[in-house]
């Protein structure tokens, strides 16, 4: 359990780093595009136009990053149990029932995310066999790997939440 939590913390840090990198890229690349276009349209600079030609890969890249950022954010959120939910019962249920609720909900989440890992792996495999290209030299399936990876990380964290609640209950009974 402690080992699992340590792994979780390490992945967390990596995910945070990636989020910062990707968001910075999204802002910088899009801002660059707009600036260049403004130079071209309002200033009639030819070099801005030709530079834009070299940067035509940024637009699909930025769109893909939206997906990556979404999955990384969602998987970080899973560890904190802060996904959007209808949260009425925390107020209404007696507090000693809460661990049981958490275990049941985590189990359901693990099952659903496991199916999603499988489903998105199927999708990646499909794209792989098509051999489509994201950019020259970069196959399209690379961009999609975040889906199985992201769902797997969510699965891992739902599992961790369920386990820690279950261990907590067992620990209470022993002494």
């Amino acid at each position: 359990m402690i080992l699992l939590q340590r792994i979780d913390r390490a992945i967390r840090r990596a995910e945070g780093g990636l989020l910062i990198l990707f968001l910075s890229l999204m802002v910088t690349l899009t801002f660059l595009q707009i600036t260049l276009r403004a130079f071209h349209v309002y200033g009639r600079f030819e070099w801005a136009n030709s530079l834009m030609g070299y940067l035509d890969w940024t637009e699909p890249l930025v769109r893909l990053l939206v997906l990556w950022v979404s999955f990384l954010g969602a998987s970080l959120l899973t560890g904190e149990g802060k996904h959007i939910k209808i949260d009425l019962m925390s107020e209404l249920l007696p507090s000693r029932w809460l661990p049981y609720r958490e275990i049941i909900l985590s189990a359901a989440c693990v099952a659903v995310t496991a199916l999603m890992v499988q489903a998105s792996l199927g999708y990646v495999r499909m794209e792989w066999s098509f051999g489509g290209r994201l950019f020259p030299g970069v196959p399209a399936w690379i961009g999609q790997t975040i889906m199985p990876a992201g769902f797997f990380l969510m699965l891992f964290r739902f599992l961790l939440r369920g386990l820690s609640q279950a261990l907590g209950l067992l620990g209470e009974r022993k002494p």
Partner: protein
Amino acid sequence: MMILLLILLMGLVLFGLPVFVGIMAAAMLGLHQSGVDFSAMAIEIFRLANAPVLLAVPLFTFAGYLLGEGGTSARLVRFSRSVFGWIPGGLGIVALVSCAFFTAITGATGVTIIALGGLLFPALISEKYKEDFSLGLMTASGSLGLHFPPSLPLILYGFVSGVSIERLFIAGLLPGVLMVGVLCLFSLFMGKKWNLERPAFSFSEFLKALKGAAWELPVPFLIVAAIYTGFATATETAVLTVVYVFLVKTLVFRELTLRTDIPRIMIESMKMVGAIMIVLGAALGLTNYLVDAFVPMKILDFMKGMVESKIGFLIMLNLFLLAVGCMMDIFSAILVVVPLIVPMAEQFQVDPVHLGVIFLANLGIGYNTPPVGLNLFIASSRFDRPIITLYRATLPFLFLLLLTLVMITYWPGLSLFLPSLLK
């Protein structure tokens, strides 16, 4: 068997299962029954990477989180106090206007009550506003400003329904002003009635406050101007907003440090984006199944037997959305319900832009509706009062907001006049 599983699933969602898991499970049940491979859902989720509009979501969220930190809220409150403070009920107006404004510039991501509640509620009490009135006012103000750009719910509505986001931004202006305005009049009326003490207008304080707020105040106006004049699209405006806000916060005010604050805010805001987008992805999967299974058509046929006229449809819509709004958060509600309603609205000749404005007004008000409106719970824990007190305190505000909802719903011109000028 299927029905049993669906009921079990609904039960789990009501007990706090993450909404996206619930939606995915529902889609899986449907796909399984019609014998379609689950990778169909993965294909739908991947659409998140093929929609240029969606780039606006992380960007405006980031800008909103940047503005949510540091002294922006205090500067805004000081400014609106210098403008409205001298009017009877002025501080109430200050609270309403600042909350609406703050909700707008932070993209309606739900930080308003947290950022402004601690500042405004004690101020209202110390100026001898009745406690019930102050509580109700702060709670109701949580559903103001949803219509003003760059509201994320509007962007999501535009994406799901296929309506131009630029038009939606412009359409929301008048209805949004109406909702804020009516509550301001109420505060003015009560202020007169209670004959509260009020400070005199001070021109020098106004200038000082203006100077303090001069950098952040123009943000929503610049966004509207950029879109209205066709200078930039919603997405481009989002990037410009991020860059502008970033420079203001780090270089002008030096409130946020590059090494610690900015990375933390980046991660925090992207978690919010993840929360919304994963629900969006799940909803795309579910909608795809529902459309393939002709579910919207079936609901439409069913409704046609019951509702004959446009007015009848709108009344049903209002009641239905109020119920949805008091159960669900605004993002999940839009993502799940809009695809089902849009084809029906078309049938009854309701303009999709107008429909978007109705949706937001309705769901926002649903937040304040007993027994389970979300704002009531947030305010109950934020101000440490029992939920029953909040039901009572919010009631007059709820009544007034419902009045504006009726106007917004049955007077399409209010929403459609400004976009009709846009060409």
